[in-house]
């Protein structure tokens, strides 16, 4: 931010300050600067003059720091008003309204001097380097992440490796042996007129056997070779021969669809 370099009309005969507000660390700093420029005794600050100069200096101030400076401006204007109040010469108990401001200025001036001392100490220290010197960034926020593709892939692999592996099933299509089941059923029907579903399955059937047998039965029933009967819900169903044994293996009226079911890997 820049401030007017030349004298403004409002200044009249007074010399203009070239004030760079960025160079000040606050309103107290600016105020000290004005006092120094004017060679003013801090014990007897001409409040009216300083207040006007202060206002002029902050005239171009951006809004960011404005609050701090405006608060001080308000304080100065209040002081200016207080100084105008009439008082009797040598009045007892009159307290200089500027007292608090002077105290703060002195305190701030001390802080400035301490800061200057710290600054010089840091400068001296910066003349010496520790081994393997790294630019001081002990507790800065983490740097933005930069990775190449390989690093990214490694990171992805690491993440994936940490996912607990689920139980995986490999799905294999296995053909059902409907024809074999049909042959078996026909041979059974040749010997017996009636048997149950469990008998049809035979001992220790696999799931493929069960499904093959079921499809074969349905197919035979569709052809009218057999009849499936169930006495009640969930009861074992009974397979009964409907045709003569030699007629059982008659070709189907249409080719059955190739049936395939997924089965677990053994």
């Amino acid at each position: 931010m820049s401030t007017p370099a030349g004298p403004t009309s409002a200044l009249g005969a007074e010399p203009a300050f070239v004030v760079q507000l960025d160079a000040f660390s606050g309103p107290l700093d600016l105020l000290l600067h004005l006092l120094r420029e004017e060679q003013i005794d801090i014990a007897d600050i001409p409040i009216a003059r300083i207040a006007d100069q202060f206002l002029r200096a902050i005239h171009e101030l951006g809004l960011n720091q404005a609050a701090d400076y405006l608060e001080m401006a308000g304080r100065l204007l209040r002081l200016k008003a207080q100084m105008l109040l009439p008082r009797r010469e040598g009045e007892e108990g009159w307290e200089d309204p500027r007292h608090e401001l002077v105290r703060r200025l002195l305190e701030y001036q001390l802080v400035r001097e301490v800061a200057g001392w710290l600054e010089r100490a840091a400068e001296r220290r910066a003349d010496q380097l520790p081994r393997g010197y790294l630019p001081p960034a002990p507790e800065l926020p983490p740097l933005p992440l930069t990775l190449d593709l390989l690093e990214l892939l490694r990171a992805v692999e690491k993440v994936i490796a940490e996912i607990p592996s689920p139980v995986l099933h490999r799905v294999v299509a296995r053909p059902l042996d409907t024809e074999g089941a049909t042959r078996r059923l026909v041979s059974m029907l040749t010997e017996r007129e009636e048997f149950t579903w469990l008998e049809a399955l035979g001992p220790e059937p696999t799931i493929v056997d069960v499904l093959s047998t079921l499809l074969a039965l349905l197919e035979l029933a569709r052809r009218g070779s057999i009849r499936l009967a169930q006495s009640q819900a969930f009861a074992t169903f009974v397979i009964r021969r409907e045709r003569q044994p030699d007629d059982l293996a008659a070709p189907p009226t249409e080719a059955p669809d190739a049936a395939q079911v997924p089965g677990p890997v053994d």
Partner: protein
Amino acid sequence: MPLKSLAQLIEAALFAANRPLTIEELQTLEPEASLAEVRAALDELREHYDFDGHAVELLELAGGYQLLTRRVFMEAIERAQLSVRTPRLTAAAMETLAVVAYRQPVGRAEIEEIRGVSAGGVLRTLQERGLIEVVGRSEGMGRPLLYGTTALFLELLGLRDLGELPKTEEFSVALQPHKPEAADSEEAAASVPAES
């Protein structure tokens, strides 16, 4: 003169470390050595660097010991861009550090009152750089955070401890209110022996 083994061990540790090491830390290198022996070894090492023409020196910093290059080499090293100086802090940061260093534990409101500006941003920056830390909470309204300086602050300034900070009375306050003539002359007289 060759260094004794304890001094060599300490030299190795100081070389390897990237921060000042305390005397207690150095003692753990050789559990059988007493603190006095460690101190003697440190003295031996310091003299070794100082009198045998070494480019580094042993310094007491932030409550510990650290090897640092001698300042005479800084310019050449910097010109060759082999290293960089610690960046300067802003005036606002230095003022805030000054208030925290002398008033700690101190809250934000007090810092702002003294400096006449809001201090939130500066405090955050100083905290991020590890120069100040929260050391507690005030008992006052809202229990505001209280700040203090860190070991890194001492390291940054090349100080052994906070006791090395000058007393506030030592600062000449340029804008002292005018004193009566008598006091002025008395002061002037008192300062003469100090200057000579």
